Every structure is written in structure tokens, then in C-alpha cells.
């Protein structure tokens, strides 16, 4: 960390402080929390892209899996729904897994040739229909149970905190499977493949209502320990007294306190992730990764197992994203599959990585905090800019039209600022050494 970087971080800090002073501290902290989560996701992407040159655009899929983990772990159990077909679904899924395992075994056992193709085709095809035959009635039964408010198998009712590592693990497992299939692809081809797989994950989450209610959303997920509820705080005498002593408004103080606790939690995890990846990057492992990124052919000839290493870093990076995705769902308190769109979860994170400076962990964090702030602040900034632009205009339909269009200044402003930042530091704010 040299002075330039410290100044950059300080400047971003000033942005947040200014938000606190001119808008409100609640808003500043809210944005900070989202910035921290984005920074963690950006770190995950940076591992894959900056360290190893893997162009992963499936970020939203991994984040969504993290979110799903929160539902499965911390949502209250739904005994009614479970009773309707929970075991049937488990049987179906287990059967599906068994079919795939059997097919893999056959694939290894049988020699190459038309026989193998035919047998595999028969096993997989038959397996698929049998699997659907077991699964479909069970899911239909679950979904028919009180569909307006339930219709799903429910969660385990365990603490939300447990869901975070599980989110990482679920994302890692998915990444492993995706990596096995798609990591042979290069650059933009890998990008579109991962984007596609992420879309598939989202479509499944939207359509399989028995899992997490699909587009009907899971709301009211419990908060992670040790984050209190504002409403409870506002009824706790000790807190009220404390707030009164300091002259705070209890409502504002309670929600600031809650946000501070989140910030502390996320910040700790962010620091942990940075520490781990900095150590890894500045070591022979990091050197090996960079050599693979620079020239796979040569790295392979120098004895590095490129495929395995790609898979390794892809899985780890995705796990980090899944972890952050779980934290995000925990904080939102709800899982809305519709939230996961590429613009927000894939491209925005990429903007963070590139603007921050790819290949540099601190860059990714700075990018996360800066772009996260920008993304949310332009919501009010854009219309403001429009107000200023139209100040000189006389009243009339043109002005009315422009004011009406003000919300669209949101993206426009974001675009302009993004272009300006990249103009003045084309390799990112904190470029790779």
C-alpha cells in the first residue's frame, strides 16, 4: 500500500462521509454494507480473472446459490409442505444423482464406440424419464400445499450465520461442475457459457417453486446472529435509555446500530478474504497462476497442471462469491430470484474489478466500494443533474419531458463517471504491479 493508494481509499471514505453528512448516516451505512458485499464479490472475480485470466460472467448464479443456501438453512421449517412430498423429492434427487453416477461409471467402464454411446443414451434417457416420474408428483404435491404463502419444503430453521459457509460450499460445488464442463473454453466463449449457466440457475430457482417458492419469493428470513432487530431495540429500555442519554432519535439510532453491526461483520470477513488472497497472490502459487494466465502452453510445458489449477481457482473464487451472496440474502431478509439480473450482479461487479484494477486485491476492494457507492447514489444524483441542466430552460413541454425522464439520468450519470474514471486511469485505479 503506497500513499497514492491510501489517498484513493481516503477519497472513497470521504464520499461515504459526505453521503452521511449531506444525506443521512443511515443511507451512508446502507451503501457501505452493500459496498462491502460487492467488494467481496469483486475479490472473488479478481481471483478468477486477475490471477488466472478466467472470464467468469456467472457471478449472479453463484450469488443466487448463496442466497438459496440461506433459505434452506435458516427459513422456518414447513412441516406441512414437507409432509406432502419432501421425501419423494429427496428420493427423486438421489435417484437422479445415482443415474448420473451410474452413467459416469459406465462411461469409464465401456470402451469407446457406438455401443457406449447407445448404452449411455439409453441409461440417461430412461433415467431422465424415471427421475421425472418420481420427482414430478412429489413436487406437485408440495407446491399444492397452501401455495399462496407456502408451497415449498421449507428450511431447517438453523441460524442464518451457518448459511454463509454453506452458500460458499454450494457455489463451490456448482463451480466445480461448471468448471469440469466449461473451463476448456477461452475468453469470451467462457464468458458467454458461464453467463448462460448462471441464467439456467436463475431459471431453475424461478421455476421450481417447491424449493424456495420461485417467483413468489421467500420473505421474512431471519437475521444472522448477532444482528438485532430495530423494532426490538426500540422496545428495549436499556437501548432507549442509552439513546436518550446521547440525545439520539431511537428509530434512527437503532437502524444505525443494526447497520454498524452488519458493517462490522462484513468488514471482518472482507479483511479475512483479502488476507488470504494477498498471501496466496504474493507467493509461488500466485506466480504460477500468473504464468498460467500469461501463457498456458508454456506453463503446461513447465510442468504446471493448467486444467487443475484453473478448476481450483474457479472453485475458490466462486465460493467467495457464493459466500457473499449468502450474506446479501441474509441482510435483505428475503430471496427474490427476480433480483438476480446480469446487469446488477455480473456487469456491475466486473466494472468494480476493472475500475479498481484487475489483478490487484486492493484494487478490487476499492472498486467495490467506489462503484457500489456510485451505483446507489446516482439514484438521487441523476435527477439532480437533470434539475441543474434544465435550470436555464423555460417552462414548457421540453422541460417537463426532461424532468419526467430524470430517472434515466441514473444510468447515464453512472456511464459518464465510469468513462471518466477509466479515462484517467485506464488500467484501473490501483493497477497490478
Amino acid at each position, binding site marked *: 500500500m503506497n500513499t497514492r493508494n491510501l489517498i484513493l481509499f481516503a477519497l472513497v471514505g470521504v464520499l461515504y462521509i459526505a453521503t452521511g453528512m449531506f444525506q443521512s448516516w443511515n443511507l451512508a451505512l446502507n451503501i457501505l454494507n452493500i459496498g462491502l458485499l460487492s467488494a467481496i464479490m469483486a475479490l472473488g472475480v479478481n481471483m478468477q480473472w486477475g490471477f488466472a485470466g478466467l472470464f467468469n460472467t456467472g457471478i449472479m448464479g453463484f450469488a443466487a446459490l448463496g442466497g438459496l443456501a440461506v433459505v434452506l438453512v435458516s427459513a422456518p421449517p414447513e412441516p406441512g409442505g414437507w409432509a406432502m412430498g419432501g421425501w419423494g423429492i429427496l428420493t427423486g434427487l438421489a435417484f437422479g444423482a445415482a443415474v448420473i453416477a451410474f452413467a459416469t461409471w459406465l462411461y469409464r467402464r465401456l470402451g469407446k464406440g457406438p455401443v457406449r454411446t447407445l448404452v449411455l443414451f439409453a441409461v440417461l434417457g430412461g433415467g431422465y424419464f424415471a427421475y421425472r416420474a418420481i420427482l414430478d408428483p412429489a413436487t406437485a404435491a408440495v407446491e399444492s400445499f397452501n401455495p399462496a404463502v407456502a408451497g415449498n419444503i421449507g428450511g431447517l430453521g438453523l441460524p442464518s450465520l451457518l448459511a454463509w459457509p454453506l452458500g460458499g460450499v454450494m457455489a463451490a460445488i456448482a463451480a466445480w461442475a461448471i468448471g469440469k464442463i466449461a473451463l476448456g473454453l477461452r475468453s469470451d466463449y467462457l464468458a458467454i457459457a458461464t453467463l448462460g449457466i448462471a441464467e439456467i440457475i436463475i431459471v431453475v430457482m424461478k421455476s421450481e417453486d417447491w424449493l424456495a417458492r420461485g417467483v413468489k419469493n421467500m420473505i421474512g428470513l431471519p437475521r444472522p446472529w448477532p444482528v438485532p432487530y430495530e423494532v426490538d431495540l426500540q422496545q428495549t429500555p436499556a437501548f432507549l435509555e442509552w439513546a436518550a442519554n446521547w440525545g439520539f432519535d431511537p428509530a434512527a439510532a437503532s437502524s444505525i446500530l443494526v447497520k454498524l453491526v452488519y458493517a462490522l461483520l462484513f468488514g471482518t470477513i472482507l479483511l479475512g478474504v483479502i488476507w488470504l488472497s494477498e498471501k496466496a497472490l504474493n507467493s509461488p502459487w500466485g506466480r504460477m497462476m500468473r504464468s498460467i494466465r500469461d501463457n498456458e502452453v508454456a506453463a*503446461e*510445458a513447465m*510442468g*504446471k497442471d493448467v486444467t487443475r489449477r484453473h478448476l481450483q481457482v474457479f472453485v475458490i473464487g466462486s465460493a467467495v462469491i457464493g459466500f457473499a451472496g449468502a450474506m446479501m440474502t441474509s441482510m435483505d431478509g428475503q430471496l427474490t430470484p427476480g433480483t438476480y439480473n446480469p446487469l446488477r450482479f455480473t456487469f456491475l461487479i466486473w466494472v468494480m474489478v476493472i475500475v479498481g484494477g484487475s489483478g490487484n486485491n486492493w484494487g478490487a476492494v476499492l472498486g467495490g466500494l467506489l462503484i457500489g457507492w456510485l451505483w446507489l447514489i446516482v439514484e438521487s444524483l441523476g435527477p439532480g443533474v437533470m434539475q441543474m441542466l434544465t435550470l436555464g430552460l423555460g417552462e414548457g413541454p421540453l422541460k417537463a419531458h426532461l424532468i419526467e425522464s430524470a430517472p434515466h439520468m441514473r444510468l447515464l450519470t453512472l456511464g459518464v463517471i465510469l468513462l471518466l474514471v477509466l479515462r484517467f486511469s485506464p488500467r484501473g485505479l490501483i493497477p497490478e504491479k
Partner: protein
Amino acid sequence: MISVQNLHKKFGAFRAVDGASLEIKTGSITGLIGPNGAGKTTLFNVIAGRLPPTSGRVKMDGRDITGLPPHELFHKGLLRTFQIAHEFGSMTVRENLMMVPENQSGETLWNTWFKRGKIADEERRIRNKADEVLEFLTISHLADQKAANISGGQKKLLELGRTMMVDAKIVFLDEVGAGVNRTLLNTIGDAIIRLNKERGYTFCVIEHDMDFIARLCGPVICIAEGKVLAQGTVEEVKNDDRVIEAYLGTGLKNKVKANA
């Protein structure tokens, strides 16, 4: 050490290697010559696992190594350089060398977090080794340059340097000499001989500079159009009519007039 049996490699309909069979004896420095496009590099690529053969076998010490991936062959002691330099451009010259040694404990993530001391020791050793190699190649002053920013010849030296970072059994050199200053090339030739004599490395060398071949190589194999055209000692091959016709030629036609 290496035995290639009836190897074929086709690109579409084009036969780049067309039934080549050859032996590289343990402890030898074998020269591989042949006209441009004869299939020398392709042959290397197949042996080193970079390309799958269309048919045929490659054996190393009697064991079949056909189709093994390059990184596994590396661990078996088979190293190669690239005709068109494959440097790691964004890394420094020294790092280019330091990444080579195998089984570095720092390449395991766990160790990078929890065994910093051990890694530091190892790094010091590898770093010294890299500096020695740079010294030898006369490019120590470039140690901290980005490899993308060094001259064409220097990149070739770096290619060679990488093979000197580990104890290899057999090293395939694909035109290390092209673009390297002849005086330096002589020094490199000496080093190859020394590695061969003292450490028992086997070499297989592709080179178009016949002086270099003559200085280094015992057996020489000439291939053309994907087939072995002639093999034997340097003298035998040099005087083979077919080799002269296809490869060596008879020298400058206009030379006399030019200097007149």
C-alpha cells in the same frame, strides 16, 4: 531414451509428420535438421504431449508416453523450448525462471497461508539458482525487467534458461540458436556439452546452423516431408546427396559477382 515409432500427424489432409521412426540414445546430443516445414517442430510437439498424434507411438525409457499431457512429461524429466518464444510477458525475467522448479511447497494454497517460513527458505534457494542461470546467459541486468520487454534474442535465451532450472533427463531444444548472437551461441553450446557430460542430460536439438550442429551433435537425423531422410554422424549426413539437395544447398550463387 526416446523412441518414436511410425509416427503420423495430420493437419486436415496435410501430413506434417508422415511415418517417422527414430531413436534418441540416452546420453547423446542428437541433432535434428531438415528443410522448413519438414515437420521437426510438429514432431517435438507430439513427443512433448502438446499435440496428439494421428497414429504411432512414443516411448521413453521403454515406457509408452504417447498422449501424456506436457505437465506430466515435465515431471518425468522431459523438457522443451519453443521455436517462437513463449515467455510469460507480464512477469519479470527472474520470475520466469523461478516458476519452473517442480513441487514447490509454495504452490499449495494451504502452505501459502500457514507455512510462510518454509516457503521463504525455498524461495531463497530458487532465487539464487535463477540468478546463476541469468548470469550464465549474460542477462542478469534484465532480471527485474518484464519479460515482454526484452529483445528477441534475449527471449530465446530465457527459453533456454528455463530448462536449466531443473534437473532434466532429456531436453528438446527447438532452434534456440535462431536470433542468438553467434559468440553467445558458442558459449551456450559449451554449456550444453557440459550439461550433457557432467549431468548426463540427453539433448535433442533442432538447428539450422550446421556449424553449431557439427560442434555439438553426435548422431544427426535429417527429416523432410515428415519422413526420416537420412541419419548418421554429422559428416555422413552432411555429405548425403539427398540432404544437400533438400536442405543444405550449394551456397551462394551470386556471391562472387556480388563482391566483384
